[in-house]
């Protein structure tokens, strides 16, 4: 197993890093033994093993021994995880456990934080995304992201969705752009509601509609992976249900990683669940296994509501 150390200072000029010696997913250890301490605060830097099964069939993104430091704070410790194609994986865990940080490693959004430092290996379709030649801007077009709070740009609904295709030059003429915008809105389940008001500002929509607009904006770039950072935490239950239905449909085409605080949501939408605790990946497994028969005491405590 190779550890690739690297430091990111600038979005546009990544520091040179050694190329990975191995990139094969087969080398990721499977079903590690249970050595985690039973309560927080007892973790040591090394030797923690993730319980369950970090691998999956048909992996698309593979993280190996990923560490994130914010200054001196070791925010993510030795996390290895596989993310499968056409599959929803949910990252759960108490606040501050590093699940959002890990998510932001997957499209290098941590590059924008000055003090953040990422080590380890993350591959997308077999290619190291932290390698020197990788342009983080191009990576983010392949790995889209939906944020906690709906954040439509201060533009019209149409321009919000057209933003990504425009900056990446995905459409050669207006007709093609129209086509992309309409199909993205359609897939985000928003077209019916907004087709008569595409010129109105994106902020004029309701919270749930804004979040679906952000999803439409993300899929308009035609990404391969969609990262969702608590996409429903600012929404009411009806809007949440719509987004969850949407995730279900989108998982037919995309790999989806969702961070959520709601275990019901994780149970409803995901195929696999990864439980994070204080920067460590404690347990990964099939969703029904995690919720019916968790292997680790911390996982059990969390899903039964004793911590979190």
């Amino acid at each position, binding site marked *: 197993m190779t550890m690739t150390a690297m430091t990111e200072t600038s*979005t546009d000029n990544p520091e040179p890093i050694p190329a990975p010696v191995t990139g094969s997913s087969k080398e990721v250890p499977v079903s590690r033994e249970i050595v985690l301490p039973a309560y927080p605060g007892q973790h040591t830097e090394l030797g923690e093993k993730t319980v369950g099964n970090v691998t999956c069939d048909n992996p698309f993104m593979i993280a190996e021994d990923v560490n994130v430091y914010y200054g001196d704070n070791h925010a993510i410790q030795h996390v290895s995880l596989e993310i499968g194609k056409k599959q929803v994986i949910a990252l759960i865990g108490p606040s501050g456990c590093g699940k959002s940080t890990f998510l932001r490693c997957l499209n290098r*959004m941590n590059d*924008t934080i*000055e003090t953040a430092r990422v080590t380890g290996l993350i591959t997308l379709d077999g290619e190291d995304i932290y390698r020197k030649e990788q342009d983080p*801007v191009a990576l983010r077009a392949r790995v889209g992201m939906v944020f906690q709070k709906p*954040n439509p*740009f*201060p533009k019209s609904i149409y321009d919000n969705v057209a*933003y990504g295709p425009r900056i990446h030059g995905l459409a050669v003429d207006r007709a093609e752009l129209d086509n992309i915008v309409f199909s993205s809105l359609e897939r985000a389940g928003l077209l019916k509601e907004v087709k008569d008001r595409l010129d109105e500002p994106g902020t004029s929509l309701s919270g749930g509609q804004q979040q679906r607009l952000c999803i439409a*904006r993300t899929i308009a770039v035609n990404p391969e992976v969609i990262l969702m950072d608590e996409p429903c935490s600012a929404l009411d239950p009806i809007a949440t249900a719509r987004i969850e239905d949407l995730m279900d449909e989108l998982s037919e085409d995309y790999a989806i990683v969702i961070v959520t605080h709601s275990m019901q949501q994780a149970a409803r939408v995901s195929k696999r669940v990864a439980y994070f605790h204080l920067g460590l990946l404690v347990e990964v497994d099939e969703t029904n296994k995690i919720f019916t028969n968790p292997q680790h005491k911390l996982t059990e405590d969390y899903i039964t509501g004793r911590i979190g």
Partner: protein
Amino acid sequence: MQSATLILLLAFMAVVSFYFGRRRSLAIVGGPSHGPVLHSLPGYYGYYVAIWCALPALALLAVWLFAEPRIIVALVVNELPESYRSLSAGELNLLINNIQNLASGDVVSSDIDRPLQDAAASFNGYIEKSRQLLAAISISLAGLGGALAWRRIRPELRARNRVEQVIRWMLIAASSIAILTTVGIVLSVLFEAIRFFQKVPLTEFLFGLNWSPQTAIRADQVGSSGSFGAVPLFTGTLLITGIAMFVAVPVGLMTAIYLAEYSSRRIRGIAKPLLEVLAGIPTVVYGFFAALTVAPWIRNAGESVGLTVASESALAAGLVMGIMIIPLVSSLADDAINAVPSAMRDGALGLGSTRSETMTKVILPAALPGIVGGVLLAVSRAIGETMIVVMAAGLAANLTANPFAAVTTVTVQIVTLLVGDQEFDSAKTLAAFALGLMLFVVTLCLNVIGLSVVRKYREQYD
């Protein structure tokens, strides 16, 4: 007794009455352990008594000191011999001045005769008596007020509400001082301007193309009929403001963009205070810089390429004024850019935008209203700026759009019209007030527009 001593004494009485009021409130309910029985905290009863002690006395003091000179002058004038009292208003005023000066031991401008000396003596006598009376009345009023309030202390007295009511009125008074001053300034300028427009028609002032404010003092003087067409001044002001904005807006905006989005924390920590130093340089120093460094440099540079450049040019003044305004523009634009939620930034980056795409396509449009508001504030600052243009732009009221020519601005003309000895009834002097009024109206409009744009923008995200 001196009024300063009196005020100190009243303050001391207020402190003492605070102590007594607080103690009585505690004594009534039987000590600190029974505090909750009181409606308010014990301190509020103290403040309540202190306010009743100090405020009426201070109010009396203020009214007294305001009315005293007028009443005493009237009394003194009444005692003067008939021959003095029948003097004209202006001469009587001079006489009163002399009496007051004699009474306080200052230089007197006329012969000191017997009635004058008597009047001065009686003036001093009245002052003496008045001050004694004032001290006695205000101290007893303070004592009385404090004692009454002290007696009214009951557990159910709503001392906190009353004290807060008084504080509220004090805050209202403080905030109205600025507003009343503004109103006062507007009115004083307005009335003088109206007097000007009685001599010179408004249409000539607003649309006349010739500015030459020298008016004849005597009827037989020639060549100084005076002409008050302010258009050359407005165009000069606009030209210099335009040049200043041409410098300040791009440079300030790009500075703000760099500091807000691109610079590391260390560079930001160095550059921001340096910019603030630039904002803290007195404008007269910028004036030196414009007149002694920039203007000759521009003239030499212009002559070397065959241009005729005046030694005092609009360009020199405008450039330096632009540099002066850079910190204002950059700090307002920086605020506007930082006010754009970081979610917006993340959203754009998460879609695979580069930093510059994020900046130009998302953040700047979102921050635009705030930036526009900031620029409008900077424009009104440039229009009102005086010192740099006085020193570097010249005095000739040329109607020109040539930045290499000497032009003059509204503010420069106000300064030249009012510097030195002036008669306050000539059109020349009054013209300064008309110009001031115009300037005030223009900058007020710009500020109102700028601030409302900024406010509208803030509502969008907070």
